[in-house]
Protein backbone atom coordinates (compact mmCIF):
# COMPACT_ATOMS: atom_id res chain seq x y z
CA UNK A 1 0.00 0.00 0.00
CA UNK A 2 1.58 3.20 -1.16
CA UNK A 3 -0.92 5.88 -0.18
CA UNK A 4 -0.36 5.71 3.54
CA UNK A 5 -2.01 9.04 4.30
CA UNK A 6 -5.30 7.67 3.11
CA UNK A 7 -5.31 4.82 5.55
CA UNK A 8 -5.11 6.72 8.81
CA UNK A 9 -8.05 6.45 11.14
CA UNK A 10 -10.62 9.20 10.61
CA UNK A 11 -10.33 10.37 14.19
CA UNK A 12 -6.54 10.66 14.04
CA UNK A 13 -5.19 14.04 14.97
CA UNK A 14 -4.65 16.31 12.03
CA UNK A 15 -7.34 14.64 9.94
CA UNK A 16 -9.58 17.32 8.44
CA UNK A 17 -13.04 17.39 9.95
CA UNK A 18 -16.12 16.38 8.01
CA UNK A 19 -17.98 19.39 6.63
CA UNK A 20 -21.01 20.25 8.78
CA UNK A 21 -24.68 19.96 7.85
CA UNK A 22 -25.33 23.70 7.94
CA UNK A 23 -22.47 24.56 5.58
CA UNK A 24 -23.32 21.71 3.22
CA UNK A 25 -26.94 22.85 3.35
CA UNK A 26 -25.86 26.27 2.06
CA UNK A 27 -23.72 24.68 -0.65
CA UNK A 28 -26.58 22.43 -1.71
CA UNK A 29 -29.01 25.35 -1.64
CA UNK A 30 -26.77 27.36 -3.97
CA UNK A 31 -26.57 24.44 -6.37
CA UNK A 32 -30.30 23.72 -6.24
CA UNK A 33 -31.06 27.35 -7.08
CA UNK A 34 -28.57 27.37 -9.96
CA UNK A 35 -30.01 24.18 -11.40
CA UNK A 36 -33.59 25.38 -10.95
CA UNK A 37 -32.99 28.46 -13.08
CA UNK A 38 -31.42 26.37 -15.83
CA UNK A 39 -34.71 24.61 -16.43
CA UNK A 40 -36.31 27.47 -18.28
CA UNK A 41 -39.63 25.76 -18.86
CA UNK A 42 -40.03 24.92 -15.21
CA UNK A 43 -39.12 28.46 -14.19
CA UNK A 44 -41.63 30.04 -16.54
CA UNK A 45 -44.49 27.77 -15.52
CA UNK A 46 -43.74 27.86 -11.81
CA UNK A 47 -43.88 31.63 -11.81
CA UNK A 48 -46.58 32.17 -14.40
CA UNK A 49 -49.15 29.75 -13.04
CA UNK A 50 -50.32 31.70 -9.97
CA UNK A 51 -50.23 34.99 -11.89
CA UNK A 52 -52.48 33.58 -14.60
CA UNK A 53 -54.89 32.32 -11.92
CA UNK A 54 -54.79 35.65 -10.12
CA UNK A 55 -55.56 37.42 -13.37
CA UNK A 56 -58.50 35.07 -14.11
CA UNK A 57 -60.12 35.14 -10.68
CA UNK A 58 -59.49 38.79 -9.97
CA UNK A 59 -60.90 39.74 -13.39
CA UNK A 60 -64.01 37.55 -13.08
CA UNK A 61 -64.84 38.58 -9.50
CA UNK A 62 -64.21 42.29 -9.07
CA UNK A 63 -67.12 43.56 -6.99
CA UNK A 64 -66.75 45.47 -3.80
CA UNK A 65 -67.27 43.15 -0.89
CA UNK A 66 -69.86 44.77 1.41
CA UNK A 67 -68.71 46.41 4.65
CA UNK A 68 -65.10 45.54 3.99
CA UNK A 69 -63.65 48.44 2.06
CA UNK A 70 -62.03 45.88 -0.28
CA UNK A 71 -62.75 44.37 -3.67
CA UNK A 72 -62.94 40.68 -4.51
CA UNK A 73 -59.90 41.26 -6.75
CA UNK A 74 -57.90 42.29 -3.69
CA UNK A 75 -59.13 39.23 -1.81
CA UNK A 76 -57.73 37.10 -4.64
CA UNK A 77 -54.36 38.85 -4.50
CA UNK A 78 -53.94 37.57 -0.92
CA UNK A 79 -55.35 34.13 -1.83
CA UNK A 80 -53.21 33.63 -4.90
CA UNK A 81 -50.11 34.78 -3.06
CA UNK A 82 -50.76 32.03 -0.50
CA UNK A 83 -51.40 29.53 -3.32
CA UNK A 84 -48.21 30.72 -5.06
CA UNK A 85 -46.22 30.12 -1.89
CA UNK A 86 -47.66 26.62 -1.66
CA UNK A 87 -47.04 25.83 -5.32
CA UNK A 88 -43.37 26.88 -5.23
CA UNK A 89 -42.88 24.81 -2.08
CA UNK A 90 -45.35 21.95 -1.70
CA UNK A 91 -46.02 21.21 -5.33
CA UNK A 92 -42.57 21.76 -6.80
CA UNK A 93 -40.78 19.82 -4.04
CA UNK A 94 -43.33 17.01 -4.03
CA UNK A 95 -42.84 16.42 -7.75
CA UNK A 96 -39.11 17.14 -8.08
CA UNK A 97 -38.05 14.94 -5.16
CA UNK A 98 -40.14 12.06 -6.53
CA UNK A 99 -38.23 12.46 -9.82
CA UNK A 100 -34.87 12.62 -8.03
CA UNK A 101 -35.79 9.47 -6.14
CA UNK A 102 -36.70 7.57 -9.29
CA UNK A 103 -33.58 8.72 -11.15
CA UNK A 104 -31.47 7.49 -8.21
CA UNK A 105 -30.14 10.98 -7.54
CA UNK A 106 -31.10 10.40 -3.91
CA UNK A 107 -29.34 7.07 -3.66
CA UNK A 108 -26.22 8.65 -5.11
CA UNK A 109 -26.32 11.27 -2.33
CA UNK A 110 -26.95 8.56 0.25
CA UNK A 111 -23.70 6.96 -0.86
CA UNK A 112 -21.72 10.01 0.26
CA UNK A 113 -21.05 11.13 3.83
CA UNK A 114 -23.46 14.04 3.28
CA UNK A 115 -25.74 14.32 6.33
CA UNK A 116 -29.42 14.02 5.28
CA UNK A 117 -30.18 17.34 6.98
CA UNK A 118 -28.01 19.10 4.37
CA UNK A 119 -30.27 17.81 1.62
CA UNK A 120 -33.41 19.11 3.33
CA UNK A 121 -31.77 22.45 4.15
CA UNK A 122 -30.78 22.84 0.50
CA UNK A 123 -34.41 22.30 -0.53
CA UNK A 124 -35.59 24.85 2.03
CA UNK A 125 -33.13 27.44 0.63
CA UNK A 126 -34.34 26.77 -2.89
CA UNK A 127 -37.94 27.18 -1.82
CA UNK A 128 -37.22 30.36 0.13
CA UNK A 129 -35.61 32.01 -2.89
CA UNK A 130 -38.23 30.92 -5.42
CA UNK A 131 -41.02 31.67 -2.92
CA UNK A 132 -39.78 35.21 -2.31
CA UNK A 133 -39.51 35.86 -6.06
CA UNK A 134 -42.97 34.43 -6.73
CA UNK A 135 -44.51 36.46 -3.92
CA UNK A 136 -42.78 39.64 -5.06
CA UNK A 137 -44.16 39.13 -8.58
CA UNK A 138 -47.70 38.50 -7.35
CA UNK A 139 -47.68 41.45 -4.96
CA UNK A 140 -46.29 43.81 -7.60
CA UNK A 141 -48.97 42.66 -10.00
CA UNK A 142 -51.66 42.93 -7.29
CA UNK A 143 -50.57 46.38 -6.14
CA UNK A 144 -50.35 47.90 -9.62
CA UNK A 145 -53.36 46.27 -11.28
CA UNK A 146 -55.80 45.70 -8.42
CA UNK A 147 -54.78 48.48 -6.03
CA UNK A 148 -53.82 46.27 -3.09
CA UNK A 149 -52.24 48.32 -0.32
CA UNK A 150 -48.79 47.08 0.64
CA UNK A 151 -47.93 47.54 4.34
CA UNK A 152 -46.78 51.05 5.03
CA UNK A 153 -44.86 50.38 8.24
CA UNK A 154 -42.25 47.96 9.55
CA UNK A 155 -44.79 46.17 11.79
CA UNK A 156 -46.88 45.23 8.75
CA UNK A 157 -43.86 43.84 6.90
CA UNK A 158 -42.71 42.02 10.01
CA UNK A 159 -46.12 40.35 10.31
CA UNK A 160 -45.89 39.43 6.64
CA UNK A 161 -42.36 38.05 7.17
CA UNK A 162 -43.22 35.61 9.95
CA UNK A 163 -46.37 34.42 8.23
CA UNK A 164 -44.41 33.90 5.01
CA UNK A 165 -41.54 32.04 6.67
CA UNK A 166 -43.75 29.77 8.78
CA UNK A 167 -46.16 29.14 5.91
CA UNK A 168 -43.53 28.30 3.32
CA UNK A 169 -41.64 26.08 5.76
CA UNK A 170 -44.83 24.12 6.50
CA UNK A 171 -45.60 23.70 2.83
CA UNK A 172 -42.02 22.72 2.00
CA UNK A 173 -41.96 20.06 4.71
CA UNK A 174 -45.31 18.70 3.57
CA UNK A 175 -44.00 18.68 0.00
CA UNK A 176 -40.96 16.65 1.07
CA UNK A 177 -43.28 14.29 2.95
CA UNK A 178 -45.72 13.78 0.07
CA UNK A 179 -42.87 13.08 -2.37
CA UNK A 180 -42.58 9.63 -0.75
CA UNK A 181 -46.20 8.74 -1.60
CA UNK A 182 -46.18 8.34 -5.43
CA UNK A 183 -44.84 5.03 -6.70
CA UNK A 184 -43.20 6.62 -9.72
CA UNK A 185 -42.12 9.98 -11.01
CA UNK A 186 -44.75 9.87 -13.73
CA UNK A 187 -47.59 9.65 -11.21
CA UNK A 188 -46.04 12.25 -8.91
CA UNK A 189 -47.74 15.33 -10.27
CA UNK A 190 -51.23 13.75 -10.01
CA UNK A 191 -50.55 12.55 -6.47
CA UNK A 192 -49.29 15.98 -5.42
CA UNK A 193 -51.75 18.21 -7.29
CA UNK A 194 -54.99 16.58 -6.11
CA UNK A 195 -54.53 17.28 -2.38
CA UNK A 196 -53.20 20.73 -3.26
CA UNK A 197 -56.35 21.54 -5.27
CA UNK A 198 -58.60 20.18 -2.53
CA UNK A 199 -56.85 22.30 0.06
CA UNK A 200 -57.15 25.36 -2.16
CA UNK A 201 -60.91 24.91 -2.35
CA UNK A 202 -61.51 24.26 1.34
CA UNK A 203 -59.08 26.94 2.51
CA UNK A 204 -60.84 29.82 0.78
CA UNK A 205 -58.34 30.34 -2.05
CA UNK A 206 -60.84 30.15 -4.92
CA UNK A 207 -64.11 30.49 -2.99
CA UNK A 208 -64.63 33.37 -0.59
CA UNK A 209 -64.19 32.24 2.98
CA UNK A 210 -67.66 33.42 4.03
CA UNK A 211 -69.43 31.35 1.38
CA UNK A 212 -67.76 28.01 2.15
CA UNK A 213 -69.89 25.43 4.01
CA UNK A 214 -68.94 25.29 7.68
CA UNK A 215 -67.76 21.68 7.63
CA UNK A 216 -65.35 22.39 4.75
CA UNK A 217 -63.93 25.31 6.64
CA UNK A 218 -63.49 23.08 9.68
CA UNK A 219 -61.57 20.49 7.65
CA UNK A 220 -59.50 23.23 6.05
CA UNK A 221 -58.64 24.62 9.47
CA UNK A 222 -56.54 21.55 10.23
CA UNK A 223 -54.08 22.44 7.45
CA UNK A 224 -51.68 25.34 7.07
CA UNK A 225 -53.00 26.84 3.80
CA UNK A 226 -56.17 28.23 5.42
CA UNK A 227 -54.11 30.07 8.03
CA UNK A 228 -51.58 31.29 5.48
CA UNK A 229 -54.41 32.80 3.40
CA UNK A 230 -55.96 34.35 6.49
CA UNK A 231 -52.67 35.88 7.61
CA UNK A 232 -52.00 37.37 4.18
CA UNK A 233 -55.50 38.85 4.09
CA UNK A 234 -54.70 40.38 7.45
CA UNK A 235 -51.58 41.98 6.00
CA UNK A 236 -52.94 43.17 2.64
CA UNK A 237 -56.67 43.91 3.15
CA UNK A 238 -58.15 46.84 5.09
CA UNK A 239 -58.90 46.00 8.73
CA UNK A 240 -62.66 46.26 8.09
CA UNK A 241 -62.34 43.16 5.89
CA UNK A 242 -61.82 41.08 9.04
CA UNK A 243 -65.62 41.03 9.16
CA UNK A 244 -65.48 38.36 6.42
CA UNK A 245 -63.55 35.98 8.64
CA UNK A 246 -65.50 33.33 10.52
CA UNK A 247 -63.99 34.59 13.78
CA UNK A 248 -64.50 38.23 12.87
CA UNK A 249 -60.80 38.94 13.37
CA UNK A 250 -57.47 37.96 11.77
CA UNK A 251 -56.54 35.69 14.73
CA UNK A 252 -52.75 36.20 14.44
CA UNK A 253 -52.16 34.24 17.65
CA UNK A 254 -53.94 31.18 16.32
CA UNK A 255 -52.22 31.53 12.92
CA UNK A 256 -48.83 31.46 14.64
CA UNK A 257 -49.87 28.48 16.72
CA UNK A 258 -51.16 26.34 13.82
CA UNK A 259 -48.34 27.25 11.41
CA UNK A 260 -45.74 26.69 14.15
CA UNK A 261 -47.25 23.33 15.08
CA UNK A 262 -47.13 22.24 11.43
CA UNK A 263 -43.41 23.11 11.28
CA UNK A 264 -42.77 20.59 14.03
CA UNK A 265 -45.31 18.06 12.79
CA UNK A 266 -44.09 18.35 9.20
CA UNK A 267 -40.48 17.87 10.26
CA UNK A 268 -41.39 14.73 12.21
CA UNK A 269 -43.40 13.45 9.26
CA UNK A 270 -40.40 13.94 6.94
CA UNK A 271 -37.99 12.25 9.32
CA UNK A 272 -40.29 9.26 9.83
CA UNK A 273 -41.43 8.70 6.25
CA UNK A 274 -38.69 9.94 3.92
CA UNK A 275 -37.51 7.33 1.43
CA UNK A 276 -34.16 7.38 -0.31
CA UNK A 277 -35.26 4.63 -2.68
CA UNK A 278 -38.37 4.13 -4.80
CA UNK A 279 -41.24 2.51 -2.94
CA UNK A 280 -41.32 -0.72 -4.90
CA UNK A 281 -37.63 -1.36 -4.37
CA UNK A 282 -37.23 -3.81 -1.57
Amino acid at each position, binding site marked *: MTTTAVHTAPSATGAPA*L*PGAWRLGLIRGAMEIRLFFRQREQVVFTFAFPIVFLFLFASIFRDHMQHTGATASQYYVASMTAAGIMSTSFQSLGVSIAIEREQRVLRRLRSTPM*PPAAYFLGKIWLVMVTGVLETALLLTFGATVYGVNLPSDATGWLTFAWIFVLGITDCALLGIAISSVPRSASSASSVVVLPFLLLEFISGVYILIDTLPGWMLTVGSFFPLKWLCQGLRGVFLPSAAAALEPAGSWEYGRIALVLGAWCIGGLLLCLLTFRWKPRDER
Partner: protein
Amino acid sequence: MTEYAVRVRGLRKRYGEVTAVNGVDLDIRRGEVFGLLGPNGAGKSTTVEILRGHRARDAGEVSVLGADPARAGRGWQARIGIVWQDESAAEESTVQETVRHFARYYPRPRDPDEVIALVGLEEKARSRTKALSGGQRRRLDVALGVIGRPELLLLDEPTTGFDPVARRQFWQLIRALADEGTTIVLTTHYLEEAEALADRLAVIAAGRLLATGEPATLAGRGEAEAIVRWTDPDGREYEAVTAEPTALVGELAARYGGEVPGLRVTRPTLEDVYLGLIGHGRDGGSGHGGGSGHAGSDHGRDGGSGQGDDSHHTREGSKR
Protein backbone atom coordinates in the same frame (compact mmCIF):
# COMPACT_ATOMS: atom_id res chain seq x y z
CA MET B 1 -4.70 -1.35 10.68
CA THR B 2 -6.13 -4.77 9.98
CA GLU B 3 -4.99 -6.90 7.10
CA TYR B 4 -8.52 -7.22 5.75
CA ALA B 5 -10.63 -4.45 4.26
CA VAL B 6 -13.71 -6.66 4.46
CA ARG B 7 -14.44 -9.64 6.71
CA VAL B 8 -17.79 -11.34 6.58
CA ARG B 9 -18.89 -14.41 8.55
CA GLY B 10 -22.20 -16.21 8.18
CA LEU B 11 -24.00 -13.32 6.47
CA ARG B 12 -27.72 -13.88 5.99
CA LYS B 13 -30.48 -11.73 4.54
CA ARG B 14 -34.08 -12.68 3.78
CA TYR B 15 -36.76 -10.72 1.93
CA GLY B 16 -39.99 -12.31 3.06
CA GLU B 17 -39.90 -15.84 1.64
CA VAL B 18 -36.77 -15.31 -0.40
CA THR B 19 -33.36 -15.89 1.10
CA ALA B 20 -31.11 -13.49 -0.80
CA VAL B 21 -27.90 -14.18 1.12
CA ASN B 22 -27.54 -17.50 2.87
CA GLY B 23 -24.45 -17.83 5.01
CA VAL B 24 -21.73 -16.03 3.07
CA ASP B 25 -18.14 -15.73 4.35
CA LEU B 26 -15.71 -13.31 2.70
CA ASP B 27 -12.17 -12.16 3.40
CA ILE B 28 -11.06 -9.31 1.18
CA ARG B 29 -7.51 -8.10 1.73
CA ARG B 30 -6.51 -4.49 1.66
CA GLY B 31 -5.32 -3.35 -1.74
CA GLU B 32 -6.83 -6.28 -3.60
CA VAL B 33 -9.27 -6.28 -6.50
CA PHE B 34 -11.99 -8.73 -5.55
CA GLY B 35 -14.66 -9.96 -7.95
CA LEU B 36 -18.09 -11.16 -6.89
CA LEU B 37 -19.36 -13.29 -9.71
CA GLY B 38 -22.81 -14.75 -10.06
CA PRO B 39 -26.05 -14.82 -12.04
CA ASN B 40 -28.78 -12.22 -11.59
CA GLY B 41 -30.49 -12.55 -8.24
CA ALA B 42 -27.53 -14.39 -6.72
CA GLY B 43 -27.29 -11.95 -3.82
CA LYS B 44 -24.36 -9.87 -5.09
CA SER B 45 -26.02 -6.48 -4.88
CA THR B 46 -27.59 -7.25 -1.52
CA THR B 47 -24.14 -8.16 -0.20
CA VAL B 48 -22.69 -4.91 -1.51
CA GLU B 49 -25.52 -2.91 0.03
CA ILE B 50 -24.91 -4.55 3.39
CA LEU B 51 -21.16 -3.79 3.12
CA ARG B 52 -21.98 -0.12 2.55
CA GLY B 53 -24.46 -0.04 5.45
CA HIS B 54 -27.44 0.69 3.20
CA ARG B 55 -29.21 -2.47 4.24
CA ALA B 56 -29.59 -4.24 7.56
CA ARG B 57 -28.55 -7.89 7.74
CA ASP B 58 -30.50 -10.63 9.47
CA ALA B 59 -27.51 -12.52 10.81
CA GLY B 60 -23.75 -12.74 10.61
CA GLU B 61 -20.71 -10.65 11.39
CA VAL B 62 -19.54 -7.92 9.07
CA SER B 63 -16.47 -5.77 9.43
CA VAL B 64 -15.65 -3.20 6.74
CA LEU B 65 -12.53 -1.06 7.22
CA GLY B 66 -12.58 -2.19 10.83
CA ALA B 67 -16.15 -1.11 11.62
CA ASP B 68 -19.62 -2.62 11.54
CA PRO B 69 -21.43 -0.95 8.60
CA ALA B 70 -24.72 -1.03 10.51
CA ARG B 71 -23.29 1.26 13.17
CA ALA B 72 -20.52 3.22 11.48
CA GLY B 73 -20.77 6.99 11.19
CA ARG B 74 -19.99 9.64 8.60
CA GLY B 75 -16.23 9.41 9.15
CA TRP B 76 -16.36 5.79 8.05
CA GLN B 77 -18.74 6.56 5.17
CA ALA B 78 -16.23 9.08 3.83
CA ARG B 79 -13.66 6.26 3.40
CA ILE B 80 -15.87 4.20 1.11
CA GLY B 81 -16.85 4.92 -2.47
CA ILE B 82 -19.66 3.14 -4.23
CA VAL B 83 -20.87 3.07 -7.82
CA TRP B 84 -24.24 1.58 -8.73
CA GLN B 85 -25.26 0.67 -12.23
CA ASP B 86 -28.36 2.84 -12.66
CA GLU B 87 -27.60 6.08 -10.90
CA SER B 88 -27.62 9.56 -12.25
CA ALA B 89 -26.38 12.99 -11.38
CA ALA B 90 -28.48 16.14 -11.83
CA GLU B 91 -29.26 16.54 -15.53
CA GLU B 92 -28.64 20.28 -15.73
CA SER B 93 -25.34 20.22 -13.90
CA THR B 94 -22.06 20.09 -15.83
CA VAL B 95 -19.50 17.35 -15.25
CA GLN B 96 -17.13 19.81 -13.59
CA GLU B 97 -19.81 21.32 -11.35
CA THR B 98 -21.02 17.89 -10.27
CA VAL B 99 -17.57 16.55 -9.43
CA ARG B 100 -16.59 19.75 -7.61
CA HIS B 101 -19.84 19.71 -5.69
CA PHE B 102 -19.41 16.12 -4.54
CA ALA B 103 -15.86 16.90 -3.45
CA ARG B 104 -17.34 19.24 -0.85
CA TYR B 105 -18.95 16.33 1.00
CA TYR B 106 -15.60 14.78 1.91
CA PRO B 107 -12.94 15.76 4.41
CA ARG B 108 -10.02 14.92 2.11
CA PRO B 109 -11.21 14.86 -1.48
CA ARG B 110 -9.08 14.33 -4.54
CA ASP B 111 -8.61 17.23 -6.91
CA PRO B 112 -11.81 17.38 -9.01
CA ASP B 113 -10.00 18.24 -12.25
CA GLU B 114 -7.59 15.37 -11.71
CA VAL B 115 -10.47 12.97 -11.17
CA ILE B 116 -12.18 14.20 -14.34
CA ALA B 117 -8.96 13.51 -16.21
CA LEU B 118 -8.61 10.10 -14.52
CA VAL B 119 -11.98 8.98 -15.89
CA GLY B 120 -11.24 10.52 -19.29
CA LEU B 121 -13.92 13.20 -19.29
CA GLU B 122 -11.72 16.30 -19.70
CA GLU B 123 -13.29 17.13 -23.02
CA LYS B 124 -16.74 16.84 -21.51
CA ALA B 125 -15.96 18.80 -18.33
CA ARG B 126 -18.24 21.65 -19.36
CA SER B 127 -21.02 19.50 -20.80
CA ARG B 128 -24.22 19.02 -18.88
CA THR B 129 -25.01 15.53 -17.63
CA LYS B 130 -27.98 15.24 -19.95
CA ALA B 131 -25.66 15.64 -22.97
CA LEU B 132 -23.43 12.69 -22.00
CA SER B 133 -23.57 9.24 -23.60
CA GLY B 134 -24.32 6.19 -21.48
CA GLY B 135 -20.66 5.27 -21.14
CA GLN B 136 -19.70 8.84 -20.27
CA ARG B 137 -22.35 8.92 -17.56
CA ARG B 138 -20.94 5.76 -16.05
CA ARG B 139 -17.52 7.36 -16.04
CA LEU B 140 -19.00 10.35 -14.25
CA ASP B 141 -20.48 7.91 -11.73
CA VAL B 142 -17.05 6.43 -11.19
CA ALA B 143 -15.60 9.94 -10.78
CA LEU B 144 -18.16 10.60 -8.03
CA GLY B 145 -17.34 7.24 -6.48
CA VAL B 146 -13.63 8.04 -6.16
CA ILE B 147 -13.71 11.81 -5.52
CA GLY B 148 -13.60 11.25 -1.75
CA ARG B 149 -10.30 9.34 -2.00
CA PRO B 150 -11.89 6.07 -0.83
CA GLU B 151 -9.88 3.28 0.73
CA LEU B 152 -12.54 0.85 -0.44
CA LEU B 153 -14.41 1.18 -3.72
CA LEU B 154 -17.54 -0.91 -4.30
CA LEU B 155 -18.65 -1.28 -7.92
CA ASP B 156 -21.95 -2.95 -8.80
CA GLU B 157 -21.97 -4.24 -12.40
CA PRO B 158 -19.83 -1.29 -13.46
CA THR B 159 -19.61 -1.96 -17.21
CA THR B 160 -23.14 -3.12 -18.03
CA GLY B 161 -24.06 -1.56 -21.35
CA PHE B 162 -20.51 -0.55 -22.29
CA ASP B 163 -19.16 -1.13 -25.76
CA PRO B 164 -15.91 -3.14 -25.93
CA VAL B 165 -13.71 -0.04 -26.27
CA ALA B 166 -15.34 1.71 -23.32
CA ARG B 167 -14.98 -1.49 -21.30
CA ARG B 168 -11.24 -1.67 -21.95
CA GLN B 169 -10.86 1.98 -20.95
CA PHE B 170 -12.79 1.30 -17.79
CA TRP B 171 -10.53 -1.62 -16.95
CA GLN B 172 -7.52 0.66 -17.29
CA LEU B 173 -9.13 3.05 -14.84
CA ILE B 174 -9.78 0.30 -12.30
CA ARG B 175 -6.20 -0.93 -12.61
CA ALA B 176 -4.91 2.60 -12.07
CA LEU B 177 -6.97 2.91 -8.90
CA ALA B 178 -5.82 -0.49 -7.70
CA ASP B 179 -2.20 0.55 -8.31
CA GLU B 180 -2.77 3.48 -5.97
CA GLY B 181 -3.71 1.04 -3.22
CA THR B 182 -7.49 1.29 -3.34
CA THR B 183 -9.25 -1.92 -2.35
CA ILE B 184 -11.82 -2.68 -5.03
CA VAL B 185 -14.82 -4.98 -4.80
CA LEU B 186 -16.73 -5.39 -8.03
CA THR B 187 -19.74 -7.48 -8.90
CA THR B 188 -20.05 -8.58 -12.48
CA HIS B 189 -21.49 -11.24 -14.69
CA TYR B 190 -18.93 -10.64 -17.39
CA LEU B 191 -16.43 -13.44 -16.91
CA GLU B 192 -13.72 -11.89 -19.00
CA GLU B 193 -14.02 -8.77 -16.88
CA ALA B 194 -13.58 -10.76 -13.68
CA GLU B 195 -10.61 -12.55 -15.21
CA ALA B 196 -9.02 -9.33 -16.46
CA LEU B 197 -9.37 -7.35 -13.25
CA ALA B 198 -9.76 -9.49 -10.17
CA ASP B 199 -6.90 -10.72 -8.03
CA ARG B 200 -9.38 -13.06 -6.42
CA LEU B 201 -12.94 -14.12 -7.12
CA ALA B 202 -15.91 -15.48 -5.28
CA VAL B 203 -18.68 -17.24 -7.18
CA ILE B 204 -22.05 -16.76 -5.57
CA ALA B 205 -25.41 -18.23 -6.59
CA ALA B 206 -28.75 -18.38 -4.79
CA GLY B 207 -27.18 -16.58 -1.85
CA ARG B 208 -24.45 -19.15 -1.29
CA LEU B 209 -20.73 -18.91 -1.85
CA LEU B 210 -19.75 -21.69 -4.27
CA ALA B 211 -16.04 -21.08 -4.63
CA THR B 212 -13.35 -18.55 -3.83
CA GLY B 213 -9.93 -18.25 -5.38
CA GLU B 214 -7.70 -16.73 -8.02
CA PRO B 215 -9.18 -16.65 -11.52
CA ALA B 216 -6.47 -18.94 -12.93
CA THR B 217 -6.97 -21.67 -10.33
CA LEU B 218 -10.61 -21.22 -9.31
CA ALA B 219 -12.35 -24.49 -8.47
CA GLY B 220 -9.48 -26.65 -9.68
CA ARG B 221 -9.18 -24.87 -13.02
CA GLY B 222 -5.39 -24.82 -12.79
CA GLU B 223 -5.09 -28.61 -12.48
CA ALA B 224 -7.83 -29.44 -14.94
CA GLU B 225 -7.03 -31.58 -17.95
CA ALA B 226 -6.52 -29.94 -21.31
CA ILE B 227 -8.75 -30.45 -24.31
CA VAL B 228 -7.02 -31.20 -27.62
CA ARG B 229 -9.11 -30.86 -30.78
CA TRP B 230 -8.20 -31.67 -34.33
CA THR B 231 -9.80 -32.61 -37.62
CA ASP B 232 -8.61 -35.54 -39.67
CA PRO B 233 -8.25 -35.14 -43.45
CA ASP B 234 -11.67 -36.66 -44.20
CA GLY B 235 -13.38 -33.97 -42.06
CA ARG B 236 -14.03 -35.85 -38.84
CA GLU B 237 -13.51 -33.83 -35.69
CA TYR B 238 -11.80 -35.24 -32.66
CA GLU B 239 -11.60 -34.02 -29.13
CA ALA B 240 -9.38 -35.56 -26.47
CA VAL B 241 -9.26 -34.71 -22.77
CA THR B 242 -5.79 -35.29 -21.43
CA ALA B 243 -3.43 -34.43 -18.64
CA GLU B 244 -0.52 -34.62 -21.15
CA PRO B 245 -1.48 -32.49 -24.13
CA THR B 246 2.11 -32.08 -25.29
CA ALA B 247 2.59 -35.81 -25.59
CA LEU B 248 -0.67 -36.17 -27.51
CA VAL B 249 0.22 -33.37 -29.90
CA GLY B 250 3.57 -35.07 -30.46
CA GLU B 251 1.84 -38.32 -31.36
CA LEU B 252 -0.56 -36.52 -33.67
CA ALA B 253 2.28 -34.68 -35.37
CA ALA B 254 3.96 -38.00 -36.03
CA ARG B 255 0.73 -39.51 -37.30
CA TYR B 256 -0.05 -36.68 -39.74
CA GLY B 257 3.58 -36.12 -40.66
CA GLY B 258 3.95 -32.50 -39.52
CA GLU B 259 1.08 -30.10 -39.16
CA VAL B 260 -1.96 -31.46 -37.33
CA PRO B 261 -5.07 -30.31 -39.21
CA GLY B 262 -7.36 -27.99 -37.20
CA LEU B 263 -5.29 -28.34 -34.05
CA ARG B 264 -6.48 -26.53 -30.90
CA VAL B 265 -5.36 -27.07 -27.32
CA THR B 266 -7.45 -25.41 -24.59
CA ARG B 267 -7.83 -25.49 -20.85
CA PRO B 268 -11.27 -24.97 -19.32
CA THR B 269 -12.08 -21.27 -19.48
CA LEU B 270 -13.29 -19.35 -16.47
CA GLU B 271 -16.69 -19.57 -18.10
CA ASP B 272 -16.52 -23.38 -18.16
CA VAL B 273 -15.61 -23.42 -14.48
CA TYR B 274 -18.27 -20.87 -13.65
CA LEU B 275 -21.05 -22.64 -15.51
CA GLY B 276 -20.01 -25.89 -13.88
CA LEU B 277 -20.18 -24.27 -10.46
CA ILE B 278 -23.58 -22.68 -10.86
CA GLY B 279 -24.94 -25.90 -12.36
CA HIS B 280 -25.64 -24.80 -15.91
CA GLY B 281 -22.88 -26.78 -17.55
CA ARG B 282 -23.84 -29.62 -19.86
CA ASP B 283 -21.71 -32.05 -17.91
CA GLY B 284 -20.86 -29.97 -14.92
CA GLY B 285 -19.24 -32.80 -13.00
CA SER B 286 -16.21 -32.96 -15.24
CA GLY B 287 -15.14 -29.40 -14.54
CA HIS B 288 -15.23 -28.29 -18.15
CA GLY B 289 -18.77 -28.78 -19.20
CA GLY B 290 -20.29 -26.86 -22.01
CA GLY B 291 -17.07 -25.63 -23.47
CA SER B 292 -16.61 -27.75 -26.56
CA GLY B 293 -18.17 -25.33 -28.99
CA HIS B 294 -18.91 -27.75 -31.83
CA ALA B 295 -21.47 -26.49 -34.27
CA GLY B 296 -24.51 -28.69 -33.86
CA SER B 297 -22.45 -31.38 -32.18
CA ASP B 298 -24.15 -34.15 -30.34
CA HIS B 299 -21.08 -36.26 -29.99
CA GLY B 300 -20.93 -38.95 -27.38
CA ARG B 301 -18.00 -39.75 -25.20
CA ASP B 302 -16.41 -42.99 -26.25
CA GLY B 303 -13.13 -42.93 -24.45
CA GLY B 304 -10.36 -45.05 -25.86
CA SER B 305 -12.05 -46.08 -29.09
CA GLY B 306 -10.77 -43.12 -31.05
CA GLN B 307 -7.33 -42.41 -32.30
CA GLY B 308 -5.81 -41.42 -28.98
CA ASP B 309 -4.12 -44.01 -26.82
CA ASP B 310 -5.31 -45.10 -23.39
CA SER B 311 -4.08 -42.07 -21.52
CA HIS B 312 -6.45 -39.77 -23.45
CA HIS B 313 -10.22 -39.81 -23.62
CA THR B 314 -11.24 -39.08 -27.14
CA ARG B 315 -14.60 -37.84 -28.29
CA GLU B 316 -15.55 -38.02 -31.90
CA GLY B 317 -17.83 -35.70 -33.75
CA SER B 318 -18.79 -35.42 -37.36
CA LYS B 319 -19.18 -32.30 -39.39
CA ARG B 320 -22.42 -31.85 -41.22
